[in-house]
């Protein structure tokens, strides 16, 4: 494989694989909590971090990590306290973050909107040694949290009220989820870009759901899809000279469509098998209910 002979491609592939693992790993909890677009919001806020990094001549990756963690924690706090105007507060946070990024980068002596573009849409071939170090460290954190605390995060994301009664530190776990999502955004920033990162968090999970019935299987399939599309997109961009971030996202959506088409007959067969397995007293077809008291639905 000549592609592996270039150091920049080695770095690019390593970064891509780590994003393929981490983005769906945290994304599954966001989807479970029905906060699928949280990654997108954090991506907007992270732009301020990138701008600040240029302005202060500090690593944009680490600066973006700090600012997006602050943004994610703010979002979580708004969810707790700002019941009525929560969406307005979030909108201000998102667009404030984006405007801040553009402003800071133009104030910076070395920065211009051209620099910003590589963070908005990814710039895989310019991933540096220090970027790779940062990405490995951050990805290790994300994997540790999403796998190590999977039962706790599952319980909190499935039913927050119940989780509280099992004595889980619900608020701490919610904050940890937000922080991990923020870290993942900055891991993915150089690969797919801030504006596309949410796609890698959400779409592999949605695609995996077409095939799975359990959370564990959804997790494994989503990560497998994530790794496949990030490698596939990176290799394609090398040979075809297309932008890797966009290629990866389009491949992910393509996978979703293909799996959905594949899964529809599978789901039908499963439903038939289930109907056949039902005890004979429980008819699969509609029947006149024996007495009042059923809620009008017929269990199939």
């Amino acid at each position: 494989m000549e592609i592996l002979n270039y150091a920049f491609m080695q770095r690019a592939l390593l970064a891509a694989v780590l994003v393929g693992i981490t983005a769906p790993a945290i994304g599954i909890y966001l989807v479970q909590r029905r906060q699928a677009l949280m990654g997108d919001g954090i991506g907007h806020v992270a732009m301020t971090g990138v701008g600040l990094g240029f302005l202060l001549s500090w690593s944009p990756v680490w600066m973006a990590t700090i600012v997006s963690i602050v943004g994610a924690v703010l979002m979580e706090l708004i969810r707790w306290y700002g019941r009525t105007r929560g969406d307005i507060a979030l909108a201000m946070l998102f667009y404030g973050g984006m405007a801040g990024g553009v402003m800071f980068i133009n104030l910076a002596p070395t920065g211009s909107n051209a620099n910003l573009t590589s963070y908005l849409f990814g710039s895989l071939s310019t991933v540096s040694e220090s970027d790779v170090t940062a990405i490995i460290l951050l990805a290790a954190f994300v994997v540790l949290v999403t796998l190590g605390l999977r039962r706790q995060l599952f319980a909190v994301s499935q039913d927050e009220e119940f989780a509280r009664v099992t004595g889980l530190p619900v608020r701490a776990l919610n904050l940890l989820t937000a922080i991990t999502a923020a870290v993942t955004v900055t891991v993915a920033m150089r690969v797919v870009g801030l504006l596309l990162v949410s796609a890698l968090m959400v779409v592999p999970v949605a695609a995996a759901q077409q095939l799975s019935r359990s959370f564990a299987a959804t997790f494994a399939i989503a990560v497998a899809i994530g790794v496949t599309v990030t490698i596939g997109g990176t290799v394609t961009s090398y040979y075809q000279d297309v932008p890797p971030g966009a290629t990866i996202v389009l491949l992910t959506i393509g996978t979703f469509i293909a799996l959905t088409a594949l899964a529809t007959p599978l789901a039908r067969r499963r439903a038939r098998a289930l109907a056949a397995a039902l005890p004979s007293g429980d008819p699969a077809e509609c029947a006149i209910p024996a007495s009042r008291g059923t809620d009008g639905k017929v269990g199939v």
Partner: protein
Amino acid sequence: MTEPVISLRGVHAELGSRPVLRGIDLTVHRGEVVALLGANGSGKSTAVRSVIGQVPVAAGEIELFGTARARFRNWARVGYVPQRTTAAGGVPATITEVVSSGRLSRTRFGLLRKADHAAVRRALELVGMADRAKDSVNALSGGQHQRVLIARALASEPELLIMDEPMAGVDLASQEVLARTLREQVAAGTTVLLVLHELGPLEPLIDRAVVLRDGCVLHDGPPPKAVGQHALPGHDHVHPHAAHDAEPIRTGLLS
């Protein structure tokens, strides 16, 4: 009298700025089965949600097993069954995965050991869902889903069960399973506090009924007997509640 498991004294709570509980006193003793009754908006759900700490208390005291609720940590002793609508995730999950969440209060760092898996299995058998253990919860009927939520509460082998409208939207077959499960738990000494819209098939199990109206205790004593057509077997108690804010409950004895 035996030691109180739940004790509420002068509890006030507000949702938004509307007072929902206006000085509730409620004591549940060990081994008792207490039903919390009342019309929609009477505060019965808010009362149990204040017990588990989901609704902040504006004034008054709540104790669980003799410990102030704010300092209570031994949540493995409490099994909670929320109203069914609160428990739906955006990702498929199997029945076992959902019920295993209920065991977390007995584990260290969320690691399930052999005994924990056995407890989850037992809880599923109690509600008659063991054969569906690997099925997705999304494929279940309302009644089956409710049975799963009760199994989740039973997975920690609790001494106290708190249930919010366990019979709402549950088909007759599942109602019977639920009543049987509850009967077995009560026979084993479990204390139960449950919010009910009407007594229904659980009536023979209930030692005491507490009726709320407008955030105040209206009645605390033996469960009211159903009369008239409400007492007929299989009677499905349906009437519009939204029309009148303070519609009296129709359990017969009080209205």
